[in-house]
């Protein structure tokens, strides 16, 4: 017989979120701590700039308690959280009154690069070029899908159809291929 004590029990995200929505501060703290890193990573991919990502994460953290009421059991917590994050990113871009911000972020890559001395410079150049070549929609979609979100969930998060997600991904691939072709021509 397997000893009972090998079990490592914890609470699902969904239960934590419901408890938090019912006023349990500790549940909320655990939930956020659990997801903070993923959230930050997503914010980074959405903005392409460390400082922007930190500000965005802060916005989300500040607004999250009020948003808890909008959480519905039917959704996974991650789906809901990503939707909050994507919406917050959109709001932020709108507030800046320019859709260039995110591209600028990726354009400012050189600065960020210096923080990551060990990185391969060429690889980063390529990444910068790739991300700046994509518009907001494509970049948001990629940020999610490359974070292992399924197409169906990405569709729910972004409020578009699954077909649109698939189309965006293939479109993104097309553009990336174009970048590569250009590079090879040089």
């Amino acid at each position, binding site marked *: 017989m397997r000893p009972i004590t090998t079990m490592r*029990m*914890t609470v699902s995200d969904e239960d934590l979120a419901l408890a938090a929505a019912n006023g349990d501060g500790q549940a909320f703290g655990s939930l956020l*701590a659990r997801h903070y*890193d993923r959230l930050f990573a997503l914010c980074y991919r959405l903005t392409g700039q460390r400082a922007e990502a930190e500000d965005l994460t802060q916005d989300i953290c500040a607004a*999250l308690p009020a948003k808890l*009421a909008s959480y519905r059991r039917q959704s996974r917590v991650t789906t809901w959280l990503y939707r909050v994050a994507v919406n917050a990113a959109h709001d932020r871009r709108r507030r800046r009154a320019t859709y260039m911000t995110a591209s600028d972020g990726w354009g400012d890559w050189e600065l960020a690069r210096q923080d990551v001395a060990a990185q391969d410079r060429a690889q980063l150049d390529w990444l910068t070029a*790739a991300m700046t070549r994509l518009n907001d929609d494509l970049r948001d979609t990629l940020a999610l899908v490359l974070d292992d979100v399924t197409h169906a969930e990405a569709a729910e998060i972004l409020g*578009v159809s699954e077909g649109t997600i698939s189309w965006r991904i293939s479109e*993104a691939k097309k553009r*990336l291929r174009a970048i590569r072709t250009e590079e090879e021509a040089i």
Partner: protein
Amino acid sequence: MTSNNNEFDDLADLKSALASATPRPDPGARAAHLRLAQENFEKVYPASQGSADPSRLMSERPRGGVWQGVKEMLNTITTKGGLTVTTALVACGFLFLSPQGQELWRANAPVVNNLGPVADPVILPTPEADNAPLLNQTAEQESPVVALPETGGRALTDTLTETPREQAPLGETAGAEMSDSEIAAPPMPAAVAPTNQALTRMTAPMDGAQGYAQEFDGMVIGGIVAPGSMTDDSFIAPLPDTEAFANADDNPLKITAEAPVSTFSIDVDTAAYAVVRQSLNAGFLPNPEAVRVEEMINYFPYAYPAPEADGAPLLPTVSLFETPWNPNTQLLHIALQGEMPALADRPPLNLVFLIDTSGSMADANKLPLLKQSFRLMLDQLRPEDQVAIVEYAGFAGLVLQATAASERQTILNALQSLGAGGSTNGQGGLEQAYAVAESMAADGEVGRVILATDGDFNVGATGTDTLTDYIADKRDTGVYLSVLGFGRGNLDDATMQALAQNGNGTAAYIDTLNEAQKVLVDQLTGALFPIAGDVKVQIEFNPATVAEYRLIGYETRALNREDFNNDAVDAGELGAGHSVTAIYEITPVGSPAQRADPLRYGEAVAASESTDELGFLKLRWKEPGADESQLMTTPITVNTTVAGTEAQFAAAIAGFGQLLRGQDLYLGDWSYAEAIALANANRGEDDFGYRNEAVQLMRLAQSLTD
């Protein structure tokens, strides 16, 4: 450099580049953000810090409570897995609740993998903590527990499988080692139904967060809702309600000498009355924010004098009588009656039902009631009318092409096929509905989108502003929008108001089939055929006769004085046969009820030549579809009239609404008892029993206030 980037097919290069480029969060920032979140959480959920008064909720609360539930569970679950789960929950409780437990996981929490700088706090250092390395393996195995019944069969398993760092939801991953516990696990989350009408109602009158804190008082253990409460079928945790109501501060008392002109748009919505009724019937006083007095007054049909056949489409009737709640002031009662055109030759209707089928619509008083309501309405349509149905949840979809109303069965089948599920993409739905409406349009026909929703516009486009702009654009193309609200809990009254006001339509709230009968059958013609658009009212009071005045209600409908003559400024529509009532409380010059002292240094009021005039009433309206408005003016004399039954009843409702809003300042000792007496004495014909019902509601409110 891209020699190794030969294939983009799977985006693998981009993915690995991103993964290696994404920095770790700064620990300082992380801590600061988490702290900020916690602070805000405490602002949003203040009651979570203390024990809240559990009054009123007690009767609905299941007996038994936590320990009873735990006992039951231990009695009923005897499998090894069951014991495993309960033991674990006790362990969790220990870890989260006791200082020692918290110390344990703060200090010693094992770092499960080297990707995250901070260990997941929910990983429990049980005595077998040396098993921690197993976590990576179990994380990747992604147990079948994930697909528990509560997930409704959605594809969950495919997203968390790739990287070890996804191991966070550990409870879901523990299954590899405790697969036999699956039998025990399902009841826990499954008992938490998303909504429960009875409880939602009960908690609605108080601050949402506080209400839920009450429910959970003593039941929440460190983020785990104690399993005992979960196994108790009768206890179902409600979600916080997210109702938002549009309202403004009460109209202030105006001093005639300073602001002699009052301007407002008519309001033919009735949603506020239905919300009030629903609250009272559920046993609590409505949120004062939800009470819009003018909507309560205008809920009732009044037998006002009708306009003559060939004259203006609307006729104002003015009466002046003593205020029921203050003998020293007078009520100026202004009634606008719209003409009732010959129904026989009404133009064909093109209706697009835009139906919210998001998950929140599943309640019995939402989608099912909506289907019944539309069945009722279908019988009112004529063969030449056309109906189309668009549903929206996560995505908008055309359910029924434009179909002649005579094909009743086709329409009913389409209605019946609707099911609730998914998120809410209001904007997508609206766009599609308008596109369908435009495709159906033909000369001389009336097009209208009827939006039926519980008010959640939480996905897709954005704020109310963008949405209302869009609707205002479409309004100018001749397609109007009416809004029907269903259900409570997340009724977004503010958004509904904004949509209907901008769509030149009415907003009604449907809580019962009776209300559906009123809105969609008895008054359907008025709701769908406007006879006058952009109806604005402006009154200039005569400072020689009126010292002070106050408009009762219409807080959300106030207009700027100059906008009265600006035809570009939108205002309310008057439907066929509808009437609109506005009531001012005025204080005559020299009355002891005057509240503000005259200014010592102000200019003495120039004695107007016409001291027999109380004021001057101006109306503006547009013929349907016209761009230029027409003006009607009439002086109001100081002679009081004998208030008719209709005006007296309207006054009683005005008093009732003010009592619900808590406007004690103006009402003095006047209370529900007086309101009941006044309304009871003025029930008039009351063919449909609406006024009788209003008196019942006053009695309910009285009993809840005592």
